[in-house]
């Protein structure tokens, strides 16, 4: 086990969760962070799908890394990701039709997620399969938790619900409380991500630019 979870792999896994977070620090994958965070449920499923696909495409690219011709490496990476996403979407359609209907657009969107290309190019192309797998998990989860936090505030303040269940009591509305309509609009996600980055950098002072 010591070999499986050496200090390096631990670093590879924990880094993206905080100090090297794909959204908060590298500002990658912002597009989907805006698109799927109006409700908590799709945000969680999107986070998990990205994590799984990222981990496996990382492994595949890492296994192939010594054979991939340099000039077409981006194409090879894209083909691997696109093939994986298609397979996952087909399997969902056959065995979990309800989920696939709910996620129709989001699954396809994974192909265009910048984090995938970023990790494949920066990590999987020069590391062994096991580390690449861990790196994929770490980055996927780092992406997922930001999405969940953003979606939590957007759904709570924008619709007064969580997972579609009413959270803010009816008496609040009777007393004059109004849902913040701006919260369900994409720009608010950007502002929330910015707030997260702000808080994150005040805690981790070494991340602040001079």
């Amino acid at each position, binding site marked *: 086990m010591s070999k499986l979870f050496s200090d390096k792999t631990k670093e590879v896994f924990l880094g993206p969760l905080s100090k090297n977070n794909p959204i908060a620090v590298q500002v990658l994958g912002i597009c989907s962070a805006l698109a799927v965070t109006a409700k908590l449920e799709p945000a969680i499923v999107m986070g998990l799908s990205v994590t799984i696909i990222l981990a496996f495409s990382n492994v595949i690219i890492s296994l192939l890394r010594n054979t991939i011709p340099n*000039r077409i490496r981006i194409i*090879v990476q894209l083909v691997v990701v696109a093939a994986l996403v298609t397979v996952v979407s*087909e399997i969902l359609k056959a*065995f979990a039709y309800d989920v696939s209907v709910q996620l129709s657009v989001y699954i396809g969107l994974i192909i265009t997620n910048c984090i995938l290309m970023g990790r494949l190019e920066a990590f999987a192309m020069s590391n062994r399969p096991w580390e690449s797998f861990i790196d994929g998990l770490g980055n996927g989860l780092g992406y997922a938790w930001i999405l969940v936090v953003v979606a939590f505030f957007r*759904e709570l303040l924008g619709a007064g619900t969580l997972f579609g269940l009413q959270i803010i009591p009816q008496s609040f509305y009777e007393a004059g409380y109004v849902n913040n309509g701006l919260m369900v609009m994409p720009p608010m996600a950007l502002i929330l991500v910015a707030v997260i980055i702000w808080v994150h950098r005040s805690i981790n002072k070494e991340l602040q630019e001079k």
Partner: protein
Amino acid sequence: MNTNNNSYTLLYATVMVVIVALVLALVSGSLKEKQTTNVELDKMKQILSSLNIDTKDQDAKALWKQYITDELVVNSTAEVVASPKVEAFDIVLKKELAKKLEERELPLFVANIDGAPKYVISVYGAGLWGPIWGYVALNEDKNTIYGTYFSHASETPGLGAEISAKPFQEKFVGKSILNDQREFLSVAVVKPGQSAEGQDYVDGISGGTITSKGVEKMLMDCLGQYEAYFKQSTEGGTAQ
């Protein structure tokens, strides 16, 4: 091995494409049957849902047999097409809408709920980002709405996407699509607080105006095709 070689690159790309195509074809081929069944079951569930039947965790096929008594194909002059090109259940409304009104073959499902016949009509239109569709169930008088079901491909979650939520769909129940003179008016979808002169209306979704208007247009266009069929019934309309 020199991986920067032109012929190696070409060979690599070719082999990769063939392998990926093979894998995808295999996956798609082996799952095709299951997916088609799922799509059919889902369509049954959607239609049953417009009849206010709870289909969650139920055998849609059994419910379908229990409630749906007839699957008809009608044309715009209210004639039942005896030998339709496509069976009612397999009609793709999008394709029919592209044809001239006289040439369209339209599906009509007749259901029996507690002894009373209900007529289910399928509707298809455009929302803000992509297609929207649904089913509208009418009472025996072919005028008042018994239930609706709407869904969408890619409307904004929390805004336009709310058309697929029960609260929005229930607003249509009891509304009339014909007026006292039995003229077809459809049901308007208006901004909350506003009203529509001379016809029944429901409140649209705040922040989802384009999708709401899309629903209104979809109802107008698709229910309008059956206008002649609705007028067959002799009971008076009840629109204000």
